[in-house]
């Protein structure tokens, strides 16, 4: 029973809107509670499945009493919250001391507790990583500092005092390793996107701004589809050998406010509709800039796409994020005078680049890939 006001000591459950077995998501309304201020809808705080309802409708229980058990989500205890912020009580004299809000504690079974070292917990908290997504390499499966680090955590130099932020250190470590270990080769290719722009403009014409598909999403999808024929550009080089990935998880490089960037995965990019890719990209961008992304999203990308073109540069040559073996760079869309069928015409073009690992593929393959990408972008209707 959540506290719905500083003066609330108890509440009456009016109605359950879920049943045992219902799956619930963060923000869903699951119950209605009657208070002195009227009926208030109770919102759930986590994803999961309702195990059992602990309080029957019509019952009045003190604040802090568990109302229901929810399993399957994060390990945090169930804590429903009101769907609207509780207003200060309008009833004038408060004669009893305010009851501090209490948490409904549902003790997790010992097996559910994440075993993680203090150092691992501190690092995970600093970068907003969910420890339950990791597996540990320590004694008894405990998650250690290195496990968090390996899942996208920063590389930290204790007491280094070198002024590098955690994010900067992580980028420094990954990029230094990349340039040290990976023999990059670089290709660039100019792609005519006039048709793509026209098609997108038509498709977006009737949509509100929040639902419009941007050219960046179309390019991500086109890269993913093109990679199906180029397994040597999609996968991981580890332990002296290349391991191609059946799945295509394109990592979308997203800059972070205040500096740094991450490239979390859009899982199975090639199998999503263009609208889905756009939705995922929007969600990721929002979450990354809010500092919330999942460990799996950081660890899973099989290839990276960087669209610095949005910042106005003509082209960029990327540095591969190890252990990946390729990174595609997309420059800005620019108007060029192009010769087509003997006449000069204004066309919208984009310069795509590929930086790839020469241990795994050769320039010939890379060139074929860029050609394929160019061709793919001429047919937006199949994206």
């Amino acid at each position: 029973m959540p506290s719905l006001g500083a003066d609330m000591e108890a509440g009456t459950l009016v109605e359950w809107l879920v049943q045992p077995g219902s799956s619930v998501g963060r923000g869903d309304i699951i119950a209605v509670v009657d208070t002195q201020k009227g009926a208030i809808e109770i919102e759930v705080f986590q994803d999961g499945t309702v195990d059992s309802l602990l309080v029957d409708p019509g019952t009045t229980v003190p604040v802090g009493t568990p109302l229901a058990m929810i399993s399957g989500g994060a390990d945090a205890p169930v804590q429903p919250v009101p769907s609207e912020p509780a207003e200060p009580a309008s009833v004038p004299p408060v004669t009893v001391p305010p009851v501090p809000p209490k948490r409904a504690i549902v003790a997790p079974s010992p097996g559910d507790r994440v075993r993680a070292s203090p150092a691992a917990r501190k690092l995970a908290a600093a970068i907003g990583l969910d420890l339950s997504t990791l597996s540990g390499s320590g004694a008894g499966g405990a998650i250690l500092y290195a496990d968090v680090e390996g899942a996208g955590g920063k590389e930290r130099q204790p007491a280094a005092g070198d002024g590098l932020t955690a994010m900067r250190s992580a980028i420094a470590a990954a990029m230094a390793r990349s340039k040290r270990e990976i023999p990059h080769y670089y290709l660039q290719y100019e792609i005519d996107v006039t048709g793509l722009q026209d098609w997108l403009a038509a498709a977006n014409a009737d949509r509100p701004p929040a639902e419009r598909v941007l050219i960046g999403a179309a390019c991500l999808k086109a890269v993913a589809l093109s990679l199906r024929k180029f397994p040597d550009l999609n996968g991981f080089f580890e332990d002296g050998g290349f391991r191609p990935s059946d799945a295509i998880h394109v990592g979308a490089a997203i800059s972070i406010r205040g500096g740094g960037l991450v490239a979390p995965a859009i899982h199975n990019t090639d199998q999503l509709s263009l609208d889905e890719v756009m939705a995922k990209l929007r969600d990721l961008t929002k979450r990354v800039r809010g500092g919330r992304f999942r460990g799996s999203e950081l660890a899973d990308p099989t290839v990276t796409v960087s669209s610095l073109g949005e910042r106005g540069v003509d082209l960029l040559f990327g540095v591969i994020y190890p252990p990946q073996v390729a990174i595609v760079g997309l420059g800005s869309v620019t108007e060029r005078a192009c010769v087509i069928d003997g006449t000069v015409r204004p066309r919208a073009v984009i310069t795509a680049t590929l930086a790839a690992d020469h241990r795994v593929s050769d320039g010939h393959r890379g060139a074929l890939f860029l050609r394929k990408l160019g061709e793919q972008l001429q047919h937006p209707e199949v994206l």
Partner: protein
Amino acid sequence: MTTVQNTLAESAEITYRDAVKEAIRDAMKRDPRVFLMGEDVGRYGGCYAVSKGLLDEFGADRIRDTPLSESGFTGAGIGAAMAGVRPIVELMTVNFSLLALDQILNNAATIRHMSGGQFGVPVVIRMATGAGRQLAAQHSHSLEGWYAHIPGIKILAPATVEDARGMLWTALEDPDPVLIFENVMLYNRTGSLAADAGAVAIDKAAIRRPGSDVTLITYGGSLWKTLEAADRLKGEGIDAEVVDLRTLRPLDDATIMASVAKTRRAVIVDEGWRSGSLAAEITTRIVEQVFWELDAPVGRVCSEEVPIPYPAHLEQASIPQADQIVAATKQTLGTMGSGG
């Protein structure tokens, strides 16, 4: 004050015993107020032969044999120090020092406080500690951790010939009581000592071996077993850092915590009994100060909680050995067994 490290100076092999003797000789020559007193230090030359020859060199006034009365002569040394001279009191073993504990705790450690700062006790008390010479349960214990419990005194545990040579003079210059614990297994150990070796600092722990995977914290006689364990661990791909505490009171928290924060793991090797040990104190400080840097529970290798046995195999089995240090380190790293 730091260790004198003159690479141009000649260095020579010397035993720990002779390094202590050189320290005493040097102090006697530098300051006429310094004298040595204790059981059998004169005609017999010291029960571990540390003071052999000093009676001839400095005479009976400054190398004084005492009756078998630890409380009496330690008290005399404390009084002499208060009166302005600089006694070095030698107690034969830490077990016998318990007879003088009243003098050490109730007088030496408290006089500055009790007199409102009017008197200090600049005495140095040396004693042998530790097992390994088959001297059985009344001559073999390691009780320096007990003494490290007492405010008002400093506790030193030189493990190297450089510290055996250099700590005494710094201790004599200290205005308050300093106890020096010499592990009996170190007297015959040799090491390289610069010809111009002199006084060393007594307020810093030393990194005897740098490493990145785990910090092994130890002192005195256990230092060499710990270094041997670190060598063996290196062969198995584990890079251990070895911290020699050198001074057991006050502990150099800064060096300990910097090392543990770097390696994220610590194992403490302490020849004292485990319960209420110095290792327990260091463990607590680590948890208090660098808990959020830890990647594993702190490990300890201490003596078995028995009176030190007389038979050689049981005596060796009762105190920390390299095998146990290796095993405890692997346990901490999660490379052997389960951490539960």
